[in-house]
């Protein structure tokens, strides 16, 4: 038997570890287009960018276990296509950039995502943030300049970069086209709290305006950002954080359905013999009765684990029982660090959900809120309230029933 894992980051290596801990002893090939082992990403917008951590501290935990797992790890090799032979079972032939091919019995796709940009051009002083090299290049550029920093996009990464740059004493403007920060994940009231937090820390937060153009000086280096309302914001350094794109282009000619990532069923199965996990996977979460794609750290580990068990069941390995495994129905959890605030959320709120404050207050900057949708609690969110968030998450994992979760706080 053989398993191919495409992507050696969080989801891919979590899957590799789980294959081994499940007793699978045959071949595991892991490929990644990156030349070295991808780093752990969360510190890249936080401790590493702030200069608090040396770069080597942003290493994936898996790095120190690779030797135990006996992997055929091929770094610097990307997968370029899958060809499915209609006469054979199994996932097909996966071709790599060096022209070689792998024909596994089980395929785990964990190719993650990459940042969207506002321009196709490479402009000196304009940064995206995904890899360690990006973080170090931004850090160097911040050291080499002292003018204002403009962050385009107030998603998590943008908001964290803005906070880190303020902690380095820089003038920061945070631009967001939506009416409040983090609108893709948070209801507006929380976005407003985050906007106020940034303003209180001296960030010039501009909401509801888009970027018309990036302006350069005669040497071709960034000098400012022209906004959709015609105003110009001066910039020595620009960081773009306007969301990510799942890495699926290499699958364009494959039979896999691509729709906001790789479309999978409720067991993360994308096609016979093929599962997907992490930022790249869109699957049906029966707990929330909807298709979702989650771009979060802990989620990538969890989905990688599930995908490994699912592929073992698919290959008929050992006594893996689909009945016992069930569907993949997590309550996704994530955190974001901004200034002295630890924002954490478990669950999946909608903009229209009712928000109920259960602990603390917005004014003291330490609180927990629940989101209610009918008889269900869709999510819990806390600012510097880790215990409450986790207790509520444990309840939500048992059931979304509103009465059960609210009883924790009464």
């Amino acid at each position: 038997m053989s398993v191919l894992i495409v992507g050696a980051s969080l989801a891919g290596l979590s899957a590799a570890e789980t294959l081994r801990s499940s007793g699978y002893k045959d071949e595991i090939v892991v490929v990644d287009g990156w030349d070295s082992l991808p780093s752990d990403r969360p510190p890249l917008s936080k401790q590493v960018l702030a200069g608090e951590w040396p770069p080597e501290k942003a290493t994936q935990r898996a790095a120190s276990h690779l030797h135990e797992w006996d992997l055929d790890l091929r770094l610097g090799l990307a997968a370029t296509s899958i060809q499915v032979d209609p006469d054979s079972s199994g996932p097909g032939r996966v071709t790599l950039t060096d022209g070689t091919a792998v024909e596994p019995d089980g395929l785990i796709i964990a190719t993650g995502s990459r940042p969207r940009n506002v321009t196709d051009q490479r402009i000196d002083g304009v940064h995206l943030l995904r890899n360690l090299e990006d973080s170090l290049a931004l850090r160097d550029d911040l050291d080499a300049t002292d003018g204002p920093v403009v962050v385009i996009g107030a998603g998590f990464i943008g908001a964290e970069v803005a906070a880190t740059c303020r902690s380095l004493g820089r003038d920061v403007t945070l631009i967001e086209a939506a009416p409040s920060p983090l609108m893709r994940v948070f209801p507006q009231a929380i976005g407003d709290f985050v906007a106020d937090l940034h303003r209180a820390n001296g960030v010039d937060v501009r909401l509801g305006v888009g970027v018309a153009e990036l302006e350069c000086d005669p040497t071709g280096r960034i000098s400012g950002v022209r906004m959709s309302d015609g105003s110009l914001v001066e910039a020595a350094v620009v960081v773009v954080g306007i969301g990510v794109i799942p890495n699926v282009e290499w699958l364009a000619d494959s039979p896999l359905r691509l729709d906001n990532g790789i479309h999978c069923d409720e067991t993360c199965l994308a096609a016979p013999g093929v599962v997907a996990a992490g930022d790249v996977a869109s699957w049906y979460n029966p707990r929330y009765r909807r298709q979702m794609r989650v771009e979060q750290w802990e989620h990538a580990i969890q989905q990688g684990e599930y995908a490994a068990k699912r592929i073992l069941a698919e290959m008929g390995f050992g006594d893996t029982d689909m009945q016992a495994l069930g569907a993949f129905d997590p309550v996704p959890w994530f955190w974001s660090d901004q200034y002295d605030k630890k924002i954490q959320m478990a669950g999946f709120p909608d903009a229209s959900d009712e928000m109920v404050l259960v602990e603390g207050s917005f004014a003291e900057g330490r609180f927990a809120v629940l989101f209610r949708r009918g008889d269900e609690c869709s999510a819990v969110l806390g600012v510097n309230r880790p215990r409450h968030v986790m207790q509520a998450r444990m309840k939500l994992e048992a059931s979304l029933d509103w009465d059960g979760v609210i009883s924790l706080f009464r």
Partner: protein
Amino acid sequence: MKVSVDYDLCESNAICMGIAPEVFEVRDDDLLYILDENPPEELRARVEEAIKRCPKQALSLED
């Protein structure tokens, strides 16, 4: 099996508590308390899971 936590790294986000509440507890003072430094063998799988999912790589296990 002995569990230890590096408090210089731990940021009290309580992920470990969510996985093995018998062993880990984050209290209202926002600190992590190890309830059982030598947890019984039947908790090994969950303790290992907590170590894996700790975002700060703050947990470790001896034998």
